[in-house]
Structure formats: C-alpha cells, structure tokens
C-alpha cells in the first residue's frame, strides 16, 4: 500500500517559483556556500570514516547526499558544523573557514546554518511553541529565549508564523511528547527556519517516519527551503526524493567521494547501483 504511494509520488508544483528564487540569489553573488577540501575523519583508533572529501555547493543549490549505511554521511554533515571535529582538511562555510574558529565565532557560524536531524531532537517536555522559539538562540541570548512565556512578543509572533508555515499553528500550545513523529519533525523544521538560516543541512530527516508521512514532511520541508532560496545539503534515503528535489546528487562509498551528478532521471540506473 505504501509502496504504491511512493511509486506514484509527484513533486509539488512550486518548482517554477523556487527556481526563480534561487536564480535571483545566484546572480547576486556567485560564491560557494559550502566548500570542502581534503576533509578526512578518523575516530579514535579506528579506520578512516571519511577520506579526502572534496566538493563545493554554490549558493541556492539543493544537493542530495546518498550512500550506504555507514558510508559516513552523518559524519560528513556533522563535520560541516564541527559537531564532530574533522581530522584534517578545510571547510569553508559562507565564505569563512571554520576549522580553527574560536568558540564564539563558531557559534556565530552555526547560527547561520539550520540543521535538521534524523531524530527530531526536540525538548520533549516543553511546548511546541517553546521548541520553535529556541531557534531564536541563533540571534539572541538569555532568559527570554528559553521559554515562550518569557519571550519577546516579536519572537513569539515569528515562531507562530514559522509554525503556520509548516501547518502546525493549531498545536502551538501542545507538549512535544504528545505529537506524532511527522508533526515532531515539522516542528524541528520550523525551529531551523526560526534561525533565519542562510543554509540548511538535513540528515535523513524523514527516515524514521512511515513512507506516507515521510513524503508529506519531505515535500513540505523542501518547499520551504526552496521558497526561501536557501542552500541545502540533505542526506536522503529515498532516491525519488533525491531526484525530484535536488539539483545535484553526490554520493559516498566507504567514506570516499564517489559520485557527483546532476539530478536527472537518466542517471537513475547508476544511482540505484550506488544506493540500492
């Protein structure tokens, strides 16, 4: 039943708008938002998880990262924000080298990048609105960013608007542990948007959902990203998602950079080989 839903899955009709939005951005500046050179990662006394990765993503492009389980996709994404410390190599985000940044500078850099995890990683016992509001910590500090009850009115309104944009405004006062998996992931997306990011990284954002809810959330997520013309690097488990939403597909195999191709259905066979 679910496999039918996946097979007949169609991308939404908003591609027209989003392409234009992205092109506008691209003409304004033509720098790369992510530029990775020679990135390697070895965890303590084990084999190399990432080996000499090179790639760059221009502003406004949506890139899907694919590869088998354990090929190092999550590690690569985490290295981009130094949630994991890379062993060697250079990572330039939004024109700035992040290796060697101090604590405060690194925080500023992270603030500009939204990160959607495989697990929604929300604070369970707090309300939906409070969780979305936490995104404002990218720009502000202190007491008034911790709970919606103490927040600035403008921030509460913005958080409400973000919730509206993922279709969850009616659940704003609900506690997160009462939501379904798909709703939780949408809240996490709203939180990432609340950062007003320039770029978004997403690590298999719908892998823990059932296929139908996964399609729904992925649709919404990528539509929001494209509407705002953001640069996107997302790990996808679903080749259809990758093909229909990404401009370009890159692939990892055993920690090595294996593939870099535009997302066109004529490559689908070689993609399936790498992925399936």
């Amino acid at each position, binding site marked *: 039943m679910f496999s039918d839903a996946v097979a007949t899955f169609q991308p939404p009709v908003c591609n027209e708008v989003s392409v234009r939005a992205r092109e506008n951005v691209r003409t304004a500046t033509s720098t790369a938002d992510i530029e990775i050179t020679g990135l390697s990662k070895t965890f303590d006394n084990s084999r190399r998880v990432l080996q000499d990765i090179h790639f760059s993503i221009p502003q406004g492009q949506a890139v899907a990262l694919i590869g088998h389980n354990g090929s190092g996709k999550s590690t690569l994404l985490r290295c981009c924000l130094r949630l994991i410390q890379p062993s060697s190599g250079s990572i330039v985000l939004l024109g700035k080298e992040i290796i060697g940044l101090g604590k405060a500078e690194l925080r500023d850099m992270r603030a500009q990048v939204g990160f959607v995890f495989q697990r929604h990683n929300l604070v369970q016992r707090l309300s939906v609105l409070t969780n979305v509001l936490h995104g404002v*910590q990218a720009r502000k500090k202190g007491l008034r960013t911790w709970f919606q009850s103490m927040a600035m009115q403008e921030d509460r309104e913005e958080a409400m608007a973000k919730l509206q944009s993922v279709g969850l405004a009616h659940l704003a006062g609900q506690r997160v542990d009462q939501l379904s998996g798909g709703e939780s992931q949408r809240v996490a997306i709203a939180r990432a948007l609340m950062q007003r990011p320039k770029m978004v990284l997403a690590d298999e954002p719908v892998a823990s959902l059932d296929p139908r809810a996964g399609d729904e959330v992925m649709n919404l997520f990528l539509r929001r990203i494209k509407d705002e013309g953001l640069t996107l690097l997302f790990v996808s488990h679903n080749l259809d998602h990758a093909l229909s939403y990404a401009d370009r597909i890159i692939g990892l195999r055993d920690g090595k950079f294996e593939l870099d191709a535009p997302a066109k259905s004529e490559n689908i066979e070689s993609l399936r080989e790498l992925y399936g």
Partner: protein
Amino acid sequence: MADHRSTDPGQTVTNCSMPPRFRTPGWKLSLLVVTFIGLICHAFIGTELCSMTVKEIAEMPGNVLHLLQEMVPPSTRGLPKIYKAILETLQMCLVGTVFGVFVSVPLGLLAAKSLSPHKSIYIASRGFVSFCRTVPDLVWAIFFVIIVGLGPLAGTLTLMVDTIGFAGRFFAEAFEEVDSGPQEALSAIGSSNNGTFFSCVLPAAAPSCINTTMFSIERAVQSSVVLGLVGAGGIGMLLEEPMVWQNYREATTVVLTIFIMLVAVEQLNGYLRRQLIGKSG
C-alpha cells in the same frame, strides 16, 4: 572448535563429566571463611552479648513493662514548648533544603560529566559533593555548633550541607541522563552553554530534580530530629532534657509528636510530589 561442535551431540555428552554439585573450596576461600567466623566471634564479645547472665535476660520483660508504665500517660505540660520546637524544626528543614537545592543545581551541573567545563572542575565538584555526603550529620552539626554556636542556625547549616551531599549527586546524575540529541541540536543552532542548559537540560531533568528536592525535604525532617541532641536546634533538644531527668512521660509526648510530624510530612510530600510531577511542563 567448529569441528567438535558439528559432530554428533549425543556422543560428546559421554566424553564430558557432569560438574559436581559443590566445588571443594580453594585455600583462599577457606581462609576467608575462617577469618569471617573469627571476626563475628570477636564482635560478639565486643558487644557484651555473651556476658549477659540468665538473670539479666529474665529481668528484661519486667524492665520494659516498668518503662512503659512510667511513659504513660503522656504529659501535656510541655506542649507549648513542643509546638515551638516543631515549628523551629520545620523552619530549619525548609530553609536548609531550599538553600541546599539552590547550591546543588550549579554544583550538579559542574559535577555532571557531560556538562562540566573541565575535567578538574568535574573531579573537584564530585569530590566536594561526596565529602558533604560521607561526613555524618552529627559531625557536621557539632562542627557548626562550634562555628556559629548553639541553636537552629547550626542545624540549618547542617541540613543544607546534608542536602548538597544528596541533591548534588542526584542532580548531576539527572543532568547526565538527559538525552544528548536535543543538546546537540541546540549546539548546532549556535546557542550558548547557558542556553543549552536552561532551555534543554534543566526542563528535561525537571521531574527528576523535583523528586529529589521533595525527597531532600523528607530526609531533612528525619535527620533534624537527632541534631537537637548536640544542641543544633529543633525538636531533638526537647528529647535530651526529659531523658536525662528520667521524666519519661514528657519524653513520650515528644516522641509521639516527632512521629506525627514525620508521618504528616511524608504524606504531604507524597501528595505534593504527585501534583507537581503530574502538572509541570
């Protein structure tokens, strides 16, 4: 190895002997058992249990009966004094725990492995909390009586230290147990350590912390009883005088009051805890 296992299982059984029901103890175990028995005998002598005569044992029930007779009916003479002492005890407990918990939150943060800013700070705060916990209450009480003099202040400080030793440890554990995912998410947003702690760790650990706090109050009421015996304030002070003067009827009143106080606090505590945990968030 694999070859052995692949052969017919019925055959391998005949090759092996069944393990005995009991093993013959090695010399280490024998030595341990002998030492232990020796220690118990030695302790027996130390407690004067074996120097009791048959006559003494025979007199015991009579003594108990005699004491009970002198204990009833409870005297009502000291009631106003007892009322004041109970109030003082509860005040000591409340102030001691509140301040103790107040100190325990940051201390627990420093003593949580995953959150502590530095390993040396982690070890130092762990050590401090353990020290507060392992030194007995009465020793703390005597220490504070010497420092600040007789009275409820010494008792309050003792209860505070006692709470730090207890709550500091459990807060640290509660903070450590908080799911790391949301914390990583907040780090990825670029929030500060403070931001992560207050908007993620503390709310997630809240039920456990509330539980610990309520239990601290209960513990404080229990341990406050004996503090009076060394002059650190509270109801225990009233227990000393009638005991010394063998005024057992008054002692009964005090003991009964203490019993009622403990049960009441326990019940109230349980009720409040259910209310708080059920609704917080």
